[in-house]
């Protein structure tokens, strides 16, 4: 099972989702992220889903959970790089992804995080 790498740049953690995540990888990612947040005292998390072609309610829940986990450790999460086709589908599906902030790309995401520190 491939673990999703978590990079640290300054006070921000970067998670880039490249592959089709399923059950164990999702739980592993959430655990790894929690550990990193504690270890690094990071204040921001950027989740890059530029490479993600499908977001169903399962992945949607994962993203919302990651947002909640970050908040527990006083960190802000920003979801970046959503594809237009995915956004249109999510809206039709009825997934509102409340509680997860979004930005067009990592650069704008960082600007959003820094505006709040």
């Amino acid at each position, binding site marked *: 099972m491939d673990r999703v790498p978590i990079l640290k740049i300054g006070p921000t953690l970067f998670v880039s989702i490249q592959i*089709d995540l*399923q*059950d*164990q990888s999702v739980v592993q990612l959430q655990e790894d992220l929690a550990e990193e947040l504690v270890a690094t005292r990071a204040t921001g998390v950027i989740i890059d889903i530029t490479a993600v*072609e*499908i*977001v*169903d*309610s*399962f992945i*949607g*829940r994962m993203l*919302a959970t990651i947002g909640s986990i970050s908040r527990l450790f006083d960190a802000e999460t920003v979801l970046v790089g959503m*594809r*237009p*086709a*995915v956004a*249109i*589908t999510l809206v*039709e*599906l*009825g*997934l*509102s*992804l*409340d509680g997860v902030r979004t930005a067009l790309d990592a650069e704008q995401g960082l600007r959003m995080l820094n505006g709040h520190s």
Partner: protein
Amino acid sequence: MDELTIESGDDVVRVRQQVRAAAADTGLSLVDQTKVVTAASELARNALVHAGGGMARVEVAESAAGRTGIRVTFTDEGPGIPDVDLALTDGWTTGDGLGLGLSGARRLVDEFELVSKPGAGTSVVVAKWSR
């Protein structure tokens, strides 16, 4: 036409890939492909989570009006859905569980047919046609 067993999360991914390949072949637009694959993912996961597994059949088909597209059939031998109408009504919520998967998936496809009886399993047939 392809038949796939759904017994694990890996199988859900496989169903997605199969549906995606078939959808691309029939000339569906990118947005329509994304919608039907997402719907298939929801339904496959439903079968896995609520029925302990099931089957998916992907086939290229033609609509009544003569447009090409794909049809995906999901069957399971699970407990069935006691109140289908209730399961299909759902607003814009982030709720999890059976409700969101079904009604959300229905909005994503052109045709949606569900047959389910408690104790007799469930069958869902969805179709998406090219414009």
